[in-house]
């Protein structure tokens, strides 16, 4: 792994307060999820997961068809679809539109896709004000930090942290009560919603047969973002497509429960275009940006394309014993947790952070809770193999490769293996390499004088 990865992990592990915050917050979400899926509460949970997986598989395997159907339906309701290869095309589009319409203020609701392409930075660089309106994201925007968790972005911040951020950035009195802090944010953001020229949201689902975007939230900021300004732009990865409106009967039952244990989140919006002629309010213009940004690079791999089924519930983060220790900022890209561990190398290349697929004990808890049944451990194993193939090609880590060649030879030569075992048990313990790493955290087991085969042979 890179030194940077190692260092970030170490720093997080060494911070006792942070450890408690991460473990408690994820523990709460994990327990709420479990309760909501208990057999009594949802007897058909497993059936729904199987359906959700089948629907996503079908959508991905026929993605071009559904993208075109989606586009036709968006346009039939007066909206427009914009395909963007990457972040530059996204910001070019938004900047162009903002300029044409004279819009200087943009409000945004939570969207990991826009984090992926650093949209705010790009817009701000060109003189626009782009304000995050989800409370957690707003706090982070003021603090200039990346989200810590897909669903609970400010999980790592205490009320004192937030009080300090608000005091410094908003010039308000130091206030630590969460209720009051939320009211401060509400007050500031209210006016932004009403003044903004453009509202940018993400989308949890893109419904092909309706030309609709579905946005799931608890605060109401996404509703305001998509209702108050005259222009609504929804930005989503191409993989968010689902075939039909009725498929939501499966996905909506899984999403909020998987994320927070709620039966449904407070607001689920199904938006299919600008306001119709006789509707009283709503935007005049509606755009859906379909982003590639590397998804088409992932698609060809049949074994790993299931990584695109993700509905961003973060159940895998909350259940992962590794995430619950190292937190979101240890990860090298915007996506953290088990899903981050499998998509980052696929988007960025395995050399971006070669240690990432190995930062897992392969316990499988993530696969067990994934509502769309992504086999995360299997993808991690595939990625590990790719890392090693790439290292072999680039002649990196040659000592390790040699070591495993010796391992393979030894394990096919039983007498050599038995001799090596004897040596390990009888040689003095030298605290280097793996032995040193082991003993830094735990005691070594006592070395038995005889191996099993020694005892057996004397029976």
């Amino acid at each position, binding site marked *: 792994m890179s030194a940077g990865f190692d260092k970030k992990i170490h720093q997080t592990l060494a911070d006792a307060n942070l450890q408690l915050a991460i473990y408690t917050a994820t523990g709460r979400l994990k327990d709420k999820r479990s309760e909501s899926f208990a057999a009594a509460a949802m007897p058909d949970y497993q059936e729904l997961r199987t359906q959700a997986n089948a629907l996503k598989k079908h959508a991905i395997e026929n993605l071009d068809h559904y993208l075109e159907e989606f586009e036709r339906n968006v346009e039939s309701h007066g909206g427009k679809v914009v395909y963007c290869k990457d972040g530059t095309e996204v910001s070019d589009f938004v900047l162009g539109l903002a300029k044409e319409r004279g819009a200087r203020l943009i409000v945004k609701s939570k969207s990991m896709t826009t984090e992926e392409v650093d949209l705010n930075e790009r817009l701000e660089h060109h003189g626009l004000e782009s304000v995050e309106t989800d409370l957690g994201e707003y706090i982070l925007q003021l603090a200039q930090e990346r989200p810590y968790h897909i669903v609970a972005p400010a999980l790592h911040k205490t009320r004192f942290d937030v009080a300090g951020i608000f005091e410094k950035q908003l010039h308000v009195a130091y206030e630590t009560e969460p209720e009051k802090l939320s009211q401060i944010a509400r007050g500031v953001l209210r006016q932004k919603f009403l003044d903004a020229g453009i509202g940018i949201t993400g989308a949890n689902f893109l419904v092909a047969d309706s030309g609709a975007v579905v946005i799931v939230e608890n605060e109401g900021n996404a509703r305001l973002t998509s209702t108050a300004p005259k222009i609504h732009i929804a930005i989503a990865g191409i993989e968010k497509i689902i075939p039909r409106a009725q498929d939501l009967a499966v996905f909506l039952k899984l999403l909020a429960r998987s994320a927070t244990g709620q039966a449904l989140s407070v607001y689920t919006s199904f938006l299919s275009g600008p306001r119709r002629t006789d509707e009283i309010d709503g935007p005049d213009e509606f755009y859906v940006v379909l982003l590639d940004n590397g998804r088409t690079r992932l698609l060809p791999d049949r074994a790993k394309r299931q990584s695109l089924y993700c509905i961003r519930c973060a159940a895998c983060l909350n259940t992962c014993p590794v995430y619950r220790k190292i937190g979101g900022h240890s990860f090298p890209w915007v996506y953290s947790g088990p899903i981050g561990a499998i998509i980052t190398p696929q988007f960025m290349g395995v050399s971006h952070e070669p240690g990432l697929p190995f930062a897992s004990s392969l316990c499988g808890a993530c696969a067990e809770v994934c509502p769309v049944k992504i086999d995360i451990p299997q993808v991690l194993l595939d990625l590990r193999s790719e890392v090693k193939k790439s290292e072999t090609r680039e002649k990196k880590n040659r000592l390790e490769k040699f070591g495993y060649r010796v391992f393979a030879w030894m394990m*096919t030569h039983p007498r050599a293996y038995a001799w090596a075992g004897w040596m390990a*048990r009888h040689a003095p313990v030298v605290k280097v390499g793996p032995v040193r790493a082991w003993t830094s955290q735990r005691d070594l*087991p006592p070395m038995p004088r005889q191996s099993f085969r020694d005892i057996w042979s004397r029976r």
Partner: protein
Amino acid sequence: MGKRVSLFVTCLGDQLFPNAGMAVVEVLERLGYAVDFPKDQTCCGQPAFNSGYRDEARTVARHFLKTFESSEYIVVPSGSCTSMIGHHFADLFRKEPETLARVETLGRRVFEFATFLTEVANVEDVGARFDGIVTFHDGCHGLRELHIREAPRRLLARVRGLELREMLPAEECCGFGGTFSVKFAELSGAMARTKLEAILQTGANTVVSLDSSCLMQIQGALSRAGSSVRTMHLAEVLASR
């Protein structure tokens, strides 16, 4: 129809935890099985496979196949090794249909120890006695890949003198993860210490599991913490009289 089984004691079990292996033999013989130990056995190849070295893992898997192909039943005192053989060998030979077929046949004959007792030998009471307060650690491969949950608990329930207490939270990884334990040592240690908290909360004096690898991690952490709680493989408990 002779009741004959082959023992794959695992490389870790062979070299570092021979008592667990001997306990397996003792229990099986008590139940009337003849146990053989194919001497050419070494390892299932999991360390190489998990580390991304598939060619090397394949080489070791071929050797395993050769060594055990003629066994009718193969008993393994390890959830993770059983999972490697039964599930992941197939990943290694997808491009070799003939070997794949042999591997799949082999896979149907490989049994984790507790599963063998409850599903093949059809016993739950092996006549064991163990005075102790025990908490059971579900190793991740056994739990999630082999779906083993009830079998060890049913076996422990019949051990005279044994009190079983469940950990809370249950089902959390001990942090071993093979080479993960040394590649990400500090993280692995942190996970072990969380596991320890759950163990100590139960008041148990013994931690039991199906995997010596998990037990090695847990025992190492217990000793480092100065705890007198000990670890035992399920087989050792079942062999106790």
